């Protein structure tokens, strides 16, 4: 009640007024002032809202950052994270940090840079249960009621085979050895080195379905700028969509059980396909 009262007065007079002794001769003027000031407030609010929303849109658009394990998808994560930093405090390796002004990331949200400090994949995942908002959701890293860090999906490692010296033929398996899921997330593929004719390439291959994105490989990479590096899932992974099914995979075929079909008719599909192909009308000059 009181707020409303003050608000009304303030609009009438343009600033805080605590008495309502408005002289009568001013009352006609007041109506104009009221509308003018109302419009002004509306304009300023719209302007502020525009700048504000543009800024929020801008900072939340930076997708090239890696979240702690068990983070919700980026959109839900930004909604849910309250920016308290308890995951940062829980991390024993100081891997996680909160985005500061100047980092060009959504302010106050946790992220990590694997080339500096990767995620060391603690089996008890201390950063996740402390999250008060479930923006880091324990369920995403739980199998059979036990925390399982191997279920984490922070990102996926990608190899630039032009700068990876193993692809040159130099023997290096630093990333392969560093991988906590050795032999599963990164395997070594042997191929013949045609250049020398007698040596082998020992090429690292990342298996994106197993890789957790911890970044230990990126940290271990010996090249000047890491030739293997972690990208967020949304950036590095494609999506086949619903239209393709692996017929040889029983689990994938189950998707067909729920499939529904819909037949749409267009002007062309009214006729048989062959007719439509034979129709050259419109293609030739009359």
């Amino acid at each position: 009640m009181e707020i409303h009262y003050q608000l009304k007065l303030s609009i009438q007079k343009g600033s805080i007024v605590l008495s309502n002794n408005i002289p009568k001769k001013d009352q006609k003027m007041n109506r104009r002032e009221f509308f003018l000031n109302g419009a002004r407030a509306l304009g300023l609010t719209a302007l502020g809202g525009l700048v504000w929303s543009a800024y929020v849109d801008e900072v939340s658009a930076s997708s090239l950052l890696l979240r702690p394990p068990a983070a919700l998808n980026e959109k839900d994560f930004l909604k849910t994270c309250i920016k308290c930093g308890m995951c940062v405090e829980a991390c024993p390796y100081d891997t996680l940090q909160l985005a500061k002004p100047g980092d060009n990331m959504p302010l106050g949200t946790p992220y990590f840079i694997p080339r500096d400090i990767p995620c060391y994949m603690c089996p008890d995942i201390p950063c996740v249960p402390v999250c008060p908002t479930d923006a880091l959701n324990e369920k995403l890293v739980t199998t059979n009621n036990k925390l399982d860090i191997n279920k984490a999906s922070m990102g996926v490692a990608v190899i630039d085979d032009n700068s990876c010296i193993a692809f040159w033929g130099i023997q290096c398996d630093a990333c392969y050895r560093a991988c906590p899921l050795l032999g599963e997330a990164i395997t070594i593929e042997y191929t013949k080195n045609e250049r020398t004719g007698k040596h082998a390439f020992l090429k690292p291959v990342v298996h994106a379905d197993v890789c957790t994105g911890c970044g230990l490989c990126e940290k271990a990479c010996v090249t000047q700028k890491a030739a293997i590096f972690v990208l967020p899932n949304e950036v590095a992974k494609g999506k086949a969509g619903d239209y393709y099914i692996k017929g040889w995979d029983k689990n994938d075929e189950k998707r067909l059980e729920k499939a529904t079909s819909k037949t749409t008719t267009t002007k062309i599909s009214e006729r048989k396909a062959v007719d439509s192909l034979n129709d050259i009308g419109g293609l030739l000059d009359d």
Partner: protein
Amino acid sequence: MINLIKKSKFLIARRVTQFTIMFLYIAANVWGFNFLMGNLSSSKLLDTVPLSDPYAVLQMFTAGAVIASDVLIGAIIIFVFYMFIGGRAFCSWVCPVNIITDLSNYIRRKFGFNKILKRQPATRNIRYYVLVLSLILSFFMGYAAFELISPVSMIHRGLIFGLGFGWAAIVIIFLFDLFVLKNGWCGHVCPIGGFYSLIGRFSLIRVHHNHENCTACMKCKEVCPESQVLFMVTKDSIPVTSGECTNCGRCVEVCDDEALNFSIKNLKKETK
């Protein structure tokens, strides 16, 4: 000296509270002394009691986030505390930005800026517009809109986890309050203050004015960061009921005439 301490007992108590809280947060992050973990957006007391910023949680809710029980309980605890006990005490007893704006205000008073420009060119209701706007933006953008730009969380988070360019926020607020608008940030713009103003009106701890003792020296109005709440000074013996009062107690300690005092709202009514 003793008189000076006596004359600023609430000020000292407030600074001690503000610094202790920040120190406990920093100690938790740096040395793992987990008495109070997290920051002012959300924390955990003694590893068990969750405490959360109800305004941040409200924004998250409007943004469409699923509110977890921990943060909900924490928000309710804080909400109930300020609603029924503290009033808007967050602003003057906890928030670190208060130290910055109080400094601006102190300089303003010392150099007589307030006498040059008496009328402030903006309404104190901006904070309610910002509050409403933040919820509208949160709803449409799907993010807690004010949390992404809040210089308040930028500063307290910065002090605990690393400031980055956050010092710029400190400088901007300081200069804004010093040269642009008296009590500009805390008293006009900050929607957190607006939020606590709205819920703080119900709190039991209130400043009470006794107009028989008042000698109309107006020292209280000079130091008050929300001087409109002291409209009854010299006139009526009533408590300050506006939620915009931050319960900082500056008016109580500068009063030489025992005309202002803290009291508990309902008890006072009964004894009347």
